[in-house]
């Protein structure tokens, strides 16, 4: 067991168990009388016009995939950040080269209009 994680794991286990037990207990105790009316929007709510699972625009996909790519870039910055002092200017040069190559792609995607939302 890694030091210091025991408390977190126990906290996590309790945090997961609490809502699970509560919801299951409520499900066992409460009376069940489902009807269509109960599923409708209440009073001032707007009635659903269509199904929520429609097709989304491809722009969401481009933004999501660019997010994943720059997420990977961010992950690579973490090892540099914790060893910043030890690596010195050598590390800075390395990370600048790493970022420069990716910023080329970022600027290109920007110029290409991939980040535009029109």
């Amino acid at each position, binding site marked *: 067991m890694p030091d210091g994680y025991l408390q977190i794991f126990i906290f996590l286990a309790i945090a997961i168990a609490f809502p699970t037990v509560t919801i299951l207990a409520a499900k066992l105790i409460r009376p069940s009388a489902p009807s269509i009316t109960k599923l409708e929007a209440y009073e001032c709510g707007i009635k659903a016009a269509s199904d929520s699972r429609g097709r989304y625009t491809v722009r969401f*996909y481009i933004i999501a995939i660019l997010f994943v790519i720059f997420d990977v870039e961010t*992950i690579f910055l973490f090892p540099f950040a914790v060893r910043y002092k030890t690596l010195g200017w050598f590390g800075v040069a390395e990370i600048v080269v790493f970022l420069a190559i990716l910023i080329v792609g970022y600027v*290109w995607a920007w110029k290409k209009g991939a980040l535009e939302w029109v």
Partner: protein
Amino acid sequence: MLDTIFFYLFALLVVGGGILTITRSSAVHSAICLIGSLVGVAGLYLLLHAEFLFAVQIVLYIGGIMVLFLFVIMLVNLDEAARERQFNGQWWLALACVVVVGLQIAWFMRKGAGAFKLAPAAAAAASAAKGNTEAIADALFSEYLLPFEIASVLLLVAVVGSVVMAKKRI
């Protein structure tokens, strides 16, 4: 003792999430179950002292790739597919294959149990001297410097590829 309990809890999360992922008929439900499975894998990384990998698992897989999965699911309308019968009559064959492969793996793990021995003392000493992320940083910025720089080129290719392929469809 306690870490064994937590290992089995996380393993249950991984396997249970995986089974739910392949059995749900709604693709969105499958994706949510896959998130649960990946959280279990992250917990296993933490049990193995791999804190950096844990962070990568949470930030990248659960935060990034699952969002991408959900957007892909929403992009291609799966409503018609969800209404159709997805499970054909060959599930028993698949189950038989799983059992055979599982028995094989169990057999080889029993036979070659000695090969799985790690050096716990060395690993513990290394992680005690410096953290997991620091160790990765040292390896990344000395031994694996070129792969690290090439990784940025790989990411650049991914940027260009995704934009070019998606732009055509707009």
